[in-house]
């Protein structure tokens, strides 16, 4: 894996938020992630691209230990958040997931009111003292998710009644309501129409001011538009990782180049 030298390149003065070293993931005997090293920068959008089935989602789900919920899944190696090993025995995944939020491929609002969707996280983590404070968190999260103006008059309406794009932004609001430091997004736009996609992409760009965002996408245009760093996965390997502009214009690895130009699908 001499490509790994590339990962050191282009890292500027920004802090490293999450660091992965020699990560291996197995589903039973299927070796889905092989020896992946990545540094996720703070206040940066990092895109994971690669052909379908190459392990992007799997690796993303390692970052907030969502893979724990899959019985046959086994993770090896080291992943740290602010220097703390998230797979340490002492770490409760529940606490981790409040810090590393997640937005899923298919919008999955709770079948509850819009307000309750956003308020749920703060409630279970005890982030608000009293109703007024909770209202404030809900409003702030919905504003940041750029959906406040559309829903402010019907916070009691069910979240499942919104359109697909609105639902996805609601899910983003829900994820940022717990005040996470890292936001993981697994193909957040794949179920959305182009207009909703544009709205979400714009939103991702704004979110970068406060969070470190990791986004999985199968659309290279999207990766080019929203991300500063890009990681290209292929068959469970991290082939190339670096500045987005570099990956898309002048990749080092021939596999990256064929994927970018559409020869690996």
């Amino acid at each position: 894996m001499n490509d790994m030298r590339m990962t050191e390149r282009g890292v500027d003065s920004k802090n490293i938020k999450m660091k992965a070293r020699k990560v291996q993931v197995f589903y039973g005997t299927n070796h889905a992630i092989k020896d992946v090293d990545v540094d996720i920068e703070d206040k940066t959008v990092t895109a994971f691209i690669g052909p379908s089935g190459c392990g992007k989602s799997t690796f993303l789900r390692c970052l907030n230990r969502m893979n724990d919920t899959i019985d046959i899944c086994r993770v090896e190696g080291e992943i740290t958040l602010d220097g703390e090993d998230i797979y340490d025995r002492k770490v409760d995944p529940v606490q981790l997931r409040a810090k590393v939020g997640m937005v899923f491929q298919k919008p999955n609002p709770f079948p509850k009111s819009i307000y309750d969707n956003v308020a749920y996280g703060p409630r279970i983590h005890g982030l608000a003292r009293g109703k007024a404070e909770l209202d404030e968190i809900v409003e702030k999260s919905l504003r940041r998710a750029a959906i406040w103006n559309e829903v402010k008059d019907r916070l009691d309406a069910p979240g499942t009644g919104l359109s697909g794009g609105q639902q996805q932004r609601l899910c983003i609001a829900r994820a940022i309501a717990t005040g996470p430091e890292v936001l993981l997004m697994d193909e957040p736009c794949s179920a959305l129409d182009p207009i909703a996609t544009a709205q979400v992409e714009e939103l991702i760009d704004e979110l970068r001011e406060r969070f470190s965002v990791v986004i999985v996408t199968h659309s290279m245009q999207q990766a080019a538009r929203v991300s500063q760093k890009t990681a290209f996965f292929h068959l469970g390997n991290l082939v190339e990782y670096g500045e987005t502009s570099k990956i898309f214009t002048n990749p080092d690895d021939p596999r990256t180049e064929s994927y970018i130009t559409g020869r690996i699908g």
Partner: protein
Amino acid sequence: MTDATANAPARSLFTEDARTKKRNRAEARFRAYGLAAVIVGLLALVMLLVSILSNGMSAFRQTFLTIPVELTEARLDPQGNRDPAEMAAVTTFGYLPVLAQSYIDHVESLGIEHDLSPQAMAAMISGEAPAQLRSLVLEDPSLVGQTVTLRVLVSGRIDGFFKGRVTMASAERDANVTPEQLQLAQALAEVGVIETRFNWSFVTAPDASGQRPEAAGLGVAILGSFYMMLVVLVLSLPIGVAASIYLEEFAPKNRLTDLIEVNISNLAAVPSIVFGILGLAIFINFAGLPQSAPIVGGLVLTLMTLPTIIIATRASLRAVPPSIREAALGVGASKMQAVFHHVLPLAAPGILTGTIIGLAQALGETAPLLLIGMVAFVRDYPAAPPEGLFDPASALPVQVYQWTQRSDPAFVERASGAIIVLLVFLIVMNAIAVLLRRRFERRW
């Protein structure tokens, strides 16, 4: 156009080829079979309902005799001091002559001719009537010395005469009733002294002995069944739901849980009488609980209902999309929070439907109750729960069974009436289940 038909005359769309004909015939045959099957099923159902309704509706009506009764002090309160304790010494045998005499006098005053002996006259009144009069007097001793208008049951044979079960011809051969009695009853009915009217006590009164079918009611059986359902609900719902949640959401998937799973499914198919034997061995012989008590019946039925509830609950938990679980875990909910805050509420309608269907099954179950002594003849209402759960009681389906065993043909009507009551309960429960399912179906 002419060209096309000329080129391929055999392929015209207007004539069916042999294969299509054959296929269409097969389809028509299959439809006919299906329709026939449905019709046979419906006919069976209609026949069942018609036979039960035609036999049983009359159980809700009963023939009463309304007469003024002179409550003579000399017989009912010999001491004359209206002390309820002393008056209680007069048994129903003391009240019978009072009632009979009033009846004879009333018939005479109406000027109806007959040549029945006083005994034959008294036999037209139900054996239950003196007891009814006695409890009335003991409740209000000041009535003694007055004349009260009383509505009392007539004997089962007279009642049967007005319902068409007993005829003049059958009375000739019947030791319990004579045509003369029927003639008098007919005459009294014409002047309105005897009339057939709706009878609530069929639903509220306790069972009566084999000689008094006219007084037998379902009160104790309904109460006993209700208590058992209470026990079943209180035990099987939490246990079943907890077990299902554990198995579905928390248990590791391994050989042991597979084995448990298979066994739960098998348990649902175990004949109910086996649960009765189990209940007899465990709850009565080993734990020493009383026989005929709703608590034991409830426990046995709980064992029976649990698999149903577990299977239904697991199915509805599985029907909740995994994305809901992921969403909850993703914002940092613990597994338990995810289940209790999000999965369980969505599964609740399915769980409730399963529970109601399980309860309905348990309500109609007879065999295991026979084994734990719920067949006893019980005339006293069980006390209010929780003590009442340990009092002897009957149960609706067992009451049906018992009544069909009795010799007096009047019990045929009562058994059918009891089946109607049971069916009404079952229909109501199933309707609730359907309503719940409609109301809360798929909100995600």
